[in-house]
């Protein structure tokens, strides 16, 4: 099946990613760990743009850019350099932004995503290095703002801006691209997506009969789908009513889920790009072999390897490799001798499912513990130890606890009992599987007390058996194995 794209939707993305795993900023030694700090405590003459201060490029910025370029299967430039983009805005202390112009470090890459009709290739036009501006906070609401407060802690943070071809055809493809891109960046270990402002997206959107509109200020990878849905609908409605789409820049209001036209400037932007005289050009393509030597396994390769090495399903492999930290946790569990298929079920289905249910996103893995934070409230954190997962799976596999009990242990760990071991939780809650005679007793009781259900079942209503199993589980406080209970009931009733 080929996706027809009836409205001729074309979506291109510009993604700004902060290289926040580096120790220092792009051109100075100020620490990049400013996220929980008071304003203007991570600045110096260079990132404040004081007269006479000279920038010197952080080597790791270039290495990260090359890594990203290789992961995007792009070309790394033989020679590359910086430009100044001139404009006045208070978040830009120098009056210009150091960026790259006609000699970006990366060009002509691609990313294959799961599109509307199977594998779909999204072209990458370029990726370049640039510095982050400072942060503005309005005093009061934006509409009634009396002024802005400026914090230059972010000023000079290294960014990579990636520009895609307009190859995405639906908002879903836009989100899938971003999810994949973000995952790749985390595999490369250049980026922590959970930090505020780590990824900012602008989108170019057009439909048949219209023209390209730019949507700015999409601050999260989740917001992108919402912003695109709204903007495509808006453009289609304008055209349906016989109106004309004007080429403009719109602002995404995430809280209201709408895009708003910004006041159009009288004249076109005039950035007067020119070469940055304070920074020397670079010839770095000879770094590629060295960088390739330590290149990490990327998501697609890891997914294939998991299927082959562990014999797990593609669904499990895809889910486990959707986050490098989850993939590492899984391999940690397997390394302890756990059956890889069991480990996949308990990690990808149960653990990840419980994370999602609680809005927990994975934020770390240190070789023995996977950590997560609440997506809506970053003060809520949680963790699960590899050793505990291994123990839990083995208790289940040995028939000591039911699958229901094992799930309950996982829930307990995530609901504030992360300090306890599975054994402690099982003992405290009495989750060990009931002795067989206890189950036998519960089975006969259930049959005796539920005459109607028994008759229904014997009359052919299979559903009634589920009810009886439920009664047995209730009587044994969930410690019976549901499968065993079912077998015993059938045997008792039908001989």
């Amino acid at each position, binding site marked *: 099946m080929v996706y027809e794209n009836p409205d001729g939707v074309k979506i291109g993305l510009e993604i700004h990613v902060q290289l926040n795993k*580096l*120790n*220092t900023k792009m051109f*100075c*030694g*100020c*620490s990049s760990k400013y996220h929980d700090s*008071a*304003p*203007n*405590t*991570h*600045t*110096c*003459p260079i990132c*404040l743009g004081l007269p006479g201060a000279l920038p*010197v*490029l*952080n*080597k*790791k910025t*270039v290495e990260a850019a090359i890594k990203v370029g290789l992961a995007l299967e792009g070309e790394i430039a033989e020679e590359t*350099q910086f430009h100044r983009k*001139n404009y*006045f*805005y*208070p978040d830009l202390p120098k009056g210009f932004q150091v960026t790259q112009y006609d000699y970006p470090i990366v060009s002509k890459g691609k990313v294959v995503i799961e599109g509307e009709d199977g594998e779909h290739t999204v072209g990458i036009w370029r990726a370049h290095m640039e510095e982050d501006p400072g942060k*503005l*906070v*309005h*005093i009061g609401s934006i509409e009634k*703002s*009396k*002024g*802005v*407060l*400026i*914090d*230059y802690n972010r000023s000079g943070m290294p960014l990579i801006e990636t520009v895609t071809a307009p190859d995405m055809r639906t908002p879903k493809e836009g989100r899938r691209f971003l999810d994949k891109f973000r995952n790749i960046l985390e595999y490369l270990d250049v980026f922590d997506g959970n930090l505020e402002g780590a990824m900012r997206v602008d989108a170019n959107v057009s439909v048949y009969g219209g023209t390209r509109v730019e949507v700015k200020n999409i601050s999260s990878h989740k917001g992108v789908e919402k912003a695109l849905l709204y903007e495509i609908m808006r453009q289609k409605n304008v055209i349906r009513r016989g109106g004309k789409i004007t080429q403009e820049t719109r602002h995404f209001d995430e809280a209201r889920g709408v895009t708003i036209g910004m*006041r159009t400037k009288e*004249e076109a932007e*005039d950035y*007067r790009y020119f*070469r940055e*005289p304070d*920074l*020397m*050009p*670079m*010839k*770095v393509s000879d770094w590629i072999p060295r960088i390739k030597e330590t290149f990490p396994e990327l998501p697609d390769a890891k997914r294939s390897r998991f299927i082959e090495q562990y014999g797990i399903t593609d669904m499990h492999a895809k889910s486990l490799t959707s986050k490098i930290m989850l993939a590492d946790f899984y391999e940690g569990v397997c390394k302890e001798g756990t059956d890889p298929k069991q480990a996949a079920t308990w990690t990808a289905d149960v653990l990840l499912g419980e994370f999602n249910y609680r809005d927990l996103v994975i934020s770390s893995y240190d070789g023995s513990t996977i950590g997560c934070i609440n997506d809506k409230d970053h003060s809520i954190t949680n963790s699960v130890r590899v050793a505990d997962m291994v123990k839990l799976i083995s208790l289940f596999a040995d028939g000591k606890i039911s699958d229901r009990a094992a799930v309950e242990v996982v829930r307990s760990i995530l609901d504030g009992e992360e300090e306890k071991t599975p054994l402690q939780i099982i003992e405290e809650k009495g989750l060990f599987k009931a002795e067989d005679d206890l189950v036998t007793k519960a089975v006969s009781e259930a049959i005796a007390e539920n005459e109607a259900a028994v008759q229904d079942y014997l009359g052919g209503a299979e559903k009634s058996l589920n009810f009886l199993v439920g009664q047995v589980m209730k009587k044994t406080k969930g410690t019976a194995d549901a499968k065993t209970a079912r077998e015993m009931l059938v045997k008792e009733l039908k001989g």
Partner: protein
Amino acid sequence: MITKEDVEHIGWLARIEISEQETVEYMEKLNSVLDYFGQLDELPTEDVAPTYHVAEIFNVFREDVVEESLPQEDVLANTEHKQDGAFKSPKIV
């Protein structure tokens, strides 16, 4: 050829106020600078590679090592416009 309008535009881009009289004066001066550089066009440069930087230096980097930042008081010392540790600016659109 630089016109009066060009000068006004350049003045706006640089946020510099230029009087009517200065506009004419700068127009003449900028045109003479351009004429002067125009002499380069007379030279044969087909076989000359472009020079982007007078110093033939490439690859100047620093290691990713943290250095001390300035104290907040020092950062804000030169401005009267501050609040809660931040610089304060008029509303911008």
